């Protein structure tokens, strides 16, 4: 110990799991639970809860329903109230509170205190929305009365309220991440709300089109399962009958309870967010994920998607048309069409390509990061960057993710094609190779452009080369049947269309009356031919850019930048 250090007191660490003694949590308990601020919110919640119970009871008396059914009628409105307080108000509070904390300089202060990043993250995660937890708690006695009076079994409400809590934590973790990462106050709030809204309302809709896993990020599956016991007796019986046709969590046919699988799925998402937040607390300039974590995240998502989707193929529950014909059992009068299978395959590919681009965006260093990395390497006497370091190129990780994504897509496609629904069809290794090329071209170009020219150029390219042809093509094709082919060809100029059109060129299920199949196949082939050289050119340019930077900084001893 140095003489200077001797005077400093040795700190006692705060274990991350002891949330109740976490100084950040206690700080927010102190400031957000002041009686004069809390009283009004508690009064409103109490009155609303009392009103819900009162009005459902009075309607019950009026309709002469049984007391159990009358009491049960209050449960779902109370759940909606609790959901609003915890999900909407709580998430906005976490995101906004974190932004305020950053604006007020609290984040800088917090970086300097001797607590682990996880302790700090958990302190904010549970501290910022502590008032909302208390407000939701105010309505719990009414819920408890309704559950007890309605004779709802614990097997129905316990999993539901457990998943309400895990979903709340997942929502709040999302708000905390956006509040921490996005620098602009206004954007942070909008992105937070947008992300929460899409992650828990729009993206779960993909479950209807083959990406079943996403519904487990919400409270919906457990709510659906518990619903018959929460409703008045007659309505509950009807829902229970309908539920016989619902598919359950079939993760690789392990037969897990819905609540357990939902908990595991949300825990995975929260774990990923906490990892990102801890990296940011450890080092402000750090990427949200490092390269190996990004590859791991892609593999994890692929496993979850496949695990949930594959067992549903054989019974036919995966197909949208089956979902929409809810009460019809699969038989002679129903079979999935080529069109919907192709649509699901295309959607899977498009989602995978999008996810790879997002992960590549996270792990690709900015020019400033690259220059810093090379200078640090020079300072340490190294002639290369650490392969998994933030300043290293994300190219190899992107190419690896393209391969792994293509493998995931191929497993999905092969299982679908070789199922009992499409006899005589087959997907061989050429299909895998072809789709790997598609993902490599799209995601590799994106990453190379981002690495070499930065986010602004990528945004411009995405608008003018990615989105604009699709919009113009749609407008042209919409004019009339005569213009359908020109419209498709214009849309085909966009690399975004490649993951969508490629399955039609690669696979044998082509009996789709509504689509000009030959034209789309030709467009896909044109896309391969046109975009592959572009991708190679961008990758070469990326290599040259990195070599040039390396030479300038390591070779000549220069700084790699203009001096002030």
């Amino acid at each position, binding site marked *: 110990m*140095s*003489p*200077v*250090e001797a*005077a*400093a*007191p*040795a*700190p*006692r*660490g*705060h274990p991350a799991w002891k949330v109740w003694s976490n*100084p*950040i949590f*206690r*700080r927010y308990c*102190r*400031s*957000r639970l002041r009686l004069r601020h809390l009283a009004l919110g508690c009064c409103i919640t109490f009155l609303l809860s009392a009103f819900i119970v009162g009005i459902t009871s009075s309607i019950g008396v009026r309709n002469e329903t049984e007391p159990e059914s009358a009491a049960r009628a209050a449960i779902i409105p109370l759940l909606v109230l609790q959901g609003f307080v915890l999900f909407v108000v709580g998430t906005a509070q976490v995101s906004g509170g974190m932004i305020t*904390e950053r*604006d*007020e*300089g*609290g984040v*800088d*202060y*917090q*970086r*300097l*205190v*001797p*607590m682990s990043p996880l302790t700090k993250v958990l302190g904010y995660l549970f501290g910022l929305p502590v008032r909302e937890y208390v407000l939701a708690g105010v309505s719990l006695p009414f819920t408890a009365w309704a559950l007890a009076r309605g004779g709802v079994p614990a097997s129905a409400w316990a999993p539901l309220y457990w998943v309400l809590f895990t979903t709340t934590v997942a929502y709040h973790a999302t708000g905390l991440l956006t509040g921490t990462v996005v620098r602009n106050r206004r954007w942070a709030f909008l992105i937070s709300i947008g992300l929460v809204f899409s992650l828990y309302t729009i993206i779960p809709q993909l479950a209807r089109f083959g990406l079943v896993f996403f519904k487990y990020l919400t409270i919906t599956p457990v709510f659906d399962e518990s619903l018959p016991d929460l409703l008045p007796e007659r309505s509950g019986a009807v829902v229970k009958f309908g539920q016989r046709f619902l598919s359950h969590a079939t993760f690789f046919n392990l037969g897990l309870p819905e609540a357990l699988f939902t908990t595991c799925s949300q825990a995975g998402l929260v774990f990923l967010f906490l990892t990102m937040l801890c990296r940011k607390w450890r*080092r*402000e*300039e750090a990427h949200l994920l490092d390269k190996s974590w990004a590859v791991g995240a892609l593999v994890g998502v692929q496993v979850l998607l496949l695990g949930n989707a594959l067992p549903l193929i054989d019974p036919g529950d995966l197909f949208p048309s089956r979902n929409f014909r809810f009460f019809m059992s699969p038989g002679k009068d129903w079979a999935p069409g080529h069109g919907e299978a192709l649509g699901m395959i295309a959607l899977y590919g498009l989602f995978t390509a999008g996810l790879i681009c997002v992960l590549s965006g996270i792990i690709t260093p900015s*020019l*400033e990061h690259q*220059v*810093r990395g090379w*200078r*640090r390497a*020079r*300072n340490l006497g190294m002639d290369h960057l650490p392969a998994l370091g933030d300043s290293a190129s994300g190219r190899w990780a992107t190419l690896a993710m393209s391969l792994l994504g293509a493998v995931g897509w191929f497993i999905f496609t092969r299982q679908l094609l070789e199922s009992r629904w499409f006899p005589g069809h087959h997907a061989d290794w050429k299909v895998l190779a072809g789709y790997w090329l598609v993902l490599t071209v799209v995601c590799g170009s994106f990453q190379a452009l981002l690495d070499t020219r930065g986010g602004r150029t990528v945004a411009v390219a995405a608008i003018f080369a990615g989105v604009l042809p699709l919009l113009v093509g749609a407008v042209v094709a919409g004019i009339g049947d005569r213009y359908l082919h020109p419209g498709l060809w214009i849309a085909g100029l966009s690399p975004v269309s490649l993951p969508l059109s490629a399955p039609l060129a690669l696979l044998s299920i082509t009996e789709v009356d509504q689509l000009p199949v030959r034209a789309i196949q030709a467009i896909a082939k044109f896309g391969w031919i046109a975009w592959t050289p572009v991708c190679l050119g961008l990758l070469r340019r990326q290599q040259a850019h990195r070599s040039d930077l390396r030479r300038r900084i390591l070779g000549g001893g220069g*700084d790699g*930048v*203009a*001096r*002030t």
Partner: protein
Amino acid sequence: MSHPSITPGPVAPPPALEIRSLRVDYGDFVAVDHLNLTVPPGEILGIVGPNGAGKTSTFRVLATLLEPTHGEVFFGGVDIAEDSHRARRLMGYMPDLAPVPSDLRLWEFLDFYAAAHGITDADARRARADECLDQVGLLPLRERGCRELSRGQTQRVVLAKTLLHGPRLLILDEPASGLDPLARRELRLVLQGLARTGVTVLISSHILGELAEMCTSLCILHRGRVLAHGSVDAVRRQLGHATRRLTLGIVGPVEAAAARLSGRDDVRDLTAGVGMISFDFDGDDEAQADLVEALVRDRVRVKSLEERRSSLEDLLVEIAAPGRNA
């Protein structure tokens, strides 16, 4: 077989702060360029420089809030990059325009950070918070809300927070901004008191008169580089501003005195008027005393001496002037 005993000689303690070849880049902009600095314990070092000189970037690197492009920083021999946790225990950082949370009272604010610094006992936290509030003269306001404080009071609360864990190195970015003269004087006394106990203080300010009074040494930064470092006089000399303008009031004829002075190498630009002589003098305080003594010995009847030197503000203005290269 006995080995000859080796008696270790006295080992010099490591400097409180050592910066080696520090560089900070923001894209193409070089904010701090190969900064080298050594500060012994107990020193109050003022970092001076125009806007954009690299003061705040340097301070943020020292506070472990900004990763430098390269370079090394040691607090009492502890490498802050290798062991940032130990470094943070040794250091207290107060940022420019230091904020306080609007939803806490003064004692709650300090209690929170005392807990975060590992003081788990509530009584010990309260005692430490009160001690620090007393040190900055805010103990009577301990129950007041942070949002009710004036700018100057806010600065002092943050200083109290910075002192909570007993840091051995204080890094204060513009701590005197917003303070009234009385509060500035109190701040100066607090810092000088801490320095006497061996605490090293790094302080940046634009109120250069305050700095000159408060600091034991100065470091002039410009465009990320050190232009001068040392005592106030040493800094003037390094910047070529050691010259002072002396005006002597003389009883009787001035010609003889003018003749004697014009023969000296350290006297320039001499002008003589009725009962007074004015000239630039290149020597230091000792040489100036010798000069006056010599004149008196030569029977020149000196009745007054006025000394004018360019102020630190003048130096800073000249440094910041366009066209000046570091």
